[in-house]
């Protein structure tokens, strides 16, 4: 038989509310009474079982509740937000591309850097016609005379400067001064076309079709801003190689521990990064070409490296869609120790050139 007083004391002991002056008496009683010790064991087991268990909330219960409250489902909303960001960014990119395209002068059909005689033949009559005396000047004489003002009378009697007979074409082209030969002195329509490898490219990229990270952290992302979005400006170095300045924002699952305290920390911050990239994409006439993109950069917590390999699909003369597998390595330090986050995912983006 257990005295009621000691039973009460046992409950207080397990509850952390046993007065200090009552401890000695209880422990003596425990040592002497096997039934009391059994009661203690039973109470410990009951308490452990009670504390340990929590019924889990069914997922559909949460959905039902939010539906009853008229809330949009979180996952759907997030997908909408991501979709809206993607579409918005794509439209922005398209507008930028279109703007660059419209501002680009009409390229000359000639593959030569300077206009061909045929082009000159069409271009030069637009210049003011020379005075009859100048027209009679020897063809070989330097063409240094200032441009005369247009004639008062109709120039119907003036001989054509460049007769259209083929036999004369090569002889009638006047010699131009070095100043006139410079590209800037040429009419706009006769400007040399931009080399395909020399124009700046702007790019926008998303990471999110699929993503896996090591270490895995299931905690929510510590940011509500834009993430998994990169922007880049590429400067071609040659037909196949380019360097790029890139910036982006993405979340990095992190697990690191403290040797001092023995605690392990888990977090999933969104970090901004900036880096310099090299892009290789062969300059071949094909609608789909492979590419390799490597980047070295940094975040506020440590250095970062990326490699992106995939295919570029030409959508037009000035735009291409790139899609590929992207690997990321982030290194960071905590209490003098290095830790890393590795990510693998599929990213896609658009690149626009002038």
């Amino acid at each position, binding site marked *: 038989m257990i005295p009621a007083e000691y039973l009460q004391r046992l*409950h207080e002991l397990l509850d952390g509310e046993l007065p200090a002056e009552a401890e000695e008496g209880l422990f003596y009683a425990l040592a002497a009474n096997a039934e009391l010790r059994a009661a203690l064991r*039973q109470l410990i087991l009951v308490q452990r079982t009670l504390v340990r268990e929590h*019924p889990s*909330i069914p997922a559909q*219960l949460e959905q039902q509740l939010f539906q009853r409250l008229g809330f949009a489902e979180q996952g759907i909303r997030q997908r909408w937000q991501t979709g809206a960001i993607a579409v918005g960014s794509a439209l922005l990119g398209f507008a930028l591309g279109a703007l660059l395209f419209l501002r680009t002068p009409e390229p000359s059909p000639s593959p030569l850097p300077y206009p061909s005689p045929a082009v000159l033949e069409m271009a030069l009559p637009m210049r003011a016609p020379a005075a009859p005396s100048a027209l009679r000047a020897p063809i070989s004489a330097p063409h240094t005379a200032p441009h005369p003002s247009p004639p008062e009378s109709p120039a119907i009697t003036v001989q054509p400067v460049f007769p259209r007979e083929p036999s004369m074409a090569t002889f009638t082209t006047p010699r131009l001064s070095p100043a006139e030969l410079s590209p800037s002195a040429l009419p706009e329509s006769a400007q040399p076309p931009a080399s395909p490898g020399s124009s700046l490219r702007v790019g926008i990229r998303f990471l999110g079709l699929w993503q896996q990270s090591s270490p895995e952290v299931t905690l*929510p992302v510590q*940011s509500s801003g834009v993430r998994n979005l990169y922007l880049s400006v590429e400067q071609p170095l040659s037909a196949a190689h380019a360097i790029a300045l890139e910036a982006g924002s993405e979340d990095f699952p992190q697990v690191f521990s403290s040797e001092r305290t023995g605690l392990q920390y888990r977090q999933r911050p969104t970090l901004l990064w900036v880096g310099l990239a090299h892009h290789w994409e062969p300059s071949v006439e094909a609608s789909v070409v492979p590419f390799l993109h490597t980047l070295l950069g940094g975040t506020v917590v440590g250095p970062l490296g990326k490699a992106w390999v995939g295919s570029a699909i030409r959508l037009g003369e000035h735009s291409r869609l790139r899609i590929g597998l992207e690997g990321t390595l982030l290194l960071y330090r905590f209490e003098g120790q290095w830790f890393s986050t590795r990510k693998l995912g599929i990213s896609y983006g658009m690149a626009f050139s002038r």
Partner: protein
Amino acid sequence: MERPLANCSDEELFALMGSPNRQRAEAAFRELYARYSQRVYSYCARILGNRQDAQDVFQETFLRFWQSAHQERTMTNVPAFLLRIARNLCFNFLRDQHPTTEFEEELHTPPTSSSPEHQLERAELSTILHRALAQLPAEYREALVLREQIGLSYAEIAHIVGASESAVKVRVFRAKEKLRQLLAPYIEELQHYRQSSSTQREL
């Protein structure tokens, strides 16, 4: 799930829930839901002992909580307020003489490295414990759940149930004592079984 308002206090979130900006109100509600839904669900499940009833009362609790934010109200203790709503609903439900049946629900148990044998024992013990819990008077069961499962202090429990602290202590003591008596034969059997198994292993 992202929690943009994770740094806000309960009181700030409750005030936000009543704001005319629907999106902010919704985000505030979601944050408070993330913080306290498990407590409310545990309470409903243990008090009612039936999954469907617990889910109905759980939903109704949060619906009323949402409505209450749009009324003029000063909030000082959100979890206590939520549990008081849940308590009123649960006791109304029990008063209307809905039969209490066994709660068959998967339980959140922390992963352990114990043997399958021990896990089986624990599962069995859980089942017996829940049956025993259902046999307790509702007031005792409530005090025990709030104290041991939800982890409230006696003062907080007293505030929620509208009784004195000493009365709450007595209820918790009696509930535990009742559970111990109900479980004693099983626990002793378990002890004997463990002792004999270890002796056999030693031999």
